[in-house]
């Protein structure tokens, strides 16, 4: 059973927005709405500056507050793949899941009137492809794969480098891992 996860190498993210645009086209996301975004953080004062650039998306948490807060089981965690997904036909649009998500990963689709979110492009995965954002990542920053497969690129990367998750203190146990520093070569 695959345990899907994404690893984002922030060193290689050059904030080009390819993922943002590809995601919108792939998933027909409404204008002014997004399933993934780019965050650029600059700290320090001139000329001693540091930059961190990363893409953010639904973390497909193992302890997903959106799922717990859904009153109709529209939001669910796919037990087989670990993806946090949505039965749109069950969504009443109460927005509790949006309030519950510390990553602001969800939105109300203005056309369909239901909540929507990143699906890890499960339809592409089923067709043997990478998620749209990963497939088009110019910097090679986004990597997708199966944590249960020790030879998958995500497993290898997570073994090779120290990684972190966003808002670890929130206890959501994300499945999106960030590599911010490389392990110093021996």
């Amino acid at each position, binding site marked *: 059973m695959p345990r899907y996860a994404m690893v984002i190498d922030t060193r290689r993210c050059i904030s080009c927005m390819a993922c943002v645009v590809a995601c919108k086209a792939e998933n027909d996301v409404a204008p002014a709405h997004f399933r993934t975004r780019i965050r650029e953080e600059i700290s320090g004062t001139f000329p001693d500056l540091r930059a961190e650039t990363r893409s953010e998306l639904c973390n497909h948490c193992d302890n997903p507050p959106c799922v717990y807060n*859904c*009153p*109709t089981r529209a939001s669910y965690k796919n037990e087989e793949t670990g993806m946090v997904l949505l039965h749109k036909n*069950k969504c009443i*649009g109460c*927005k509790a899941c949006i309030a519950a*998500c510390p990553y602001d990963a969800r939105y*109300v689709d203005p056309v369909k009137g239901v909540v929507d979110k990143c699906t890890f492009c499960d339809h592409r995965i089923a067709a043997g492809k990478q998620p749209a954002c990963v497939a088009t990542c110019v910097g090679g920053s986004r990597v997708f794969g199966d944590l249960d497969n020790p030879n998958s690129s995500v497993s290898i990367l997570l073994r090779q480098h120290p990684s972190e998750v966003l808002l670890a203190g929130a206890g959501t146990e994300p499945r999106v891992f960030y590599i911010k520093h490389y392990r110093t070569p021996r």
Partner: protein
Amino acid sequence: MEVTVTGLNALAFPHMHIWDWRVALYLFLGGLSAGLAVMAAVLHLRKNGELVEGEAASWIAPLCVPVVLGLGMLFIFLDLEHKLNVYRLYLTVQPLSPMSWGSWGLLAFFPLSALFVLATLPERLYGWLMLDSLRNLARRLTESVRIIAFINLLMGIFIGIYTGVLLSSFVARPLWNSSILPVLFLLSALSAGAALMIIVSRSLAAKLFFTKLDIFLIAAEMTVLPLFFYGQYTSSSAHRASILPFFAFTHEYLWFGSAIILLGVIFPFALVLKLLEIREGHVTALTPAVLFRMNLSAALVLLGSAIVRFAFVYAGQLSHYL
């Protein structure tokens, strides 16, 4: 730190805004109906039912409960983005979702409060009941009015807590994510219920009784509210930042600063008014002046309760987990 985010959702920019006055009004009205149910039950249960004698509030208050509740539920329904799917709430029980057990709770509360209405409706008003079966039911229920009142009391407390838990279950919103919030909301609901009882009751005894009760509730609320802020202030940086809108007193947070100042004025003022009323022998008859003072303090408490809901619904959406 300079932060640039490209691709934020319209709903999350410049801060989250998913719930508006409809949800705040729902929480206020839901809390009010819950508080009123509790107080109406108290009226029937206290002093072996002495207070009920000749007291119109004994049936008006229970009658108000489903009306206020229905109004509140109308507003939450209006907030739903996909109203046609609302039946889905009742095809599942999600124990971790306050929204789920709240909607089941409301489903139970509504008929229970209706039973309370039937049980307390005076016989002279049975004409309002269109069906004979209803009249018979009402007549039979009258005998068990104390049991029904007690169930409504429990149900009222449950709903009063639920309106707070609804918000407090979100780790993502530090202002809400406090277990004091349900207590605060319950106290606020109960004091609002007591205030409404003061307004709808006729007898001096009942009015004075609920005035006394309200004093305790307001005092408790005035203790819990600062404790809440203290707790947030001494917690994580996100929690501390979450109460900033109330205490920044800047143009940006005008409404929240105003709310906190208003609460700081309303509650003590209402409290003093009420303390004056219950001084031994001070009030012997319901003169227009006395009625005005009592209704004024009650209205202030209701206003305070509404302010709490609105302020928390809006400010909570400004707060963010780091």
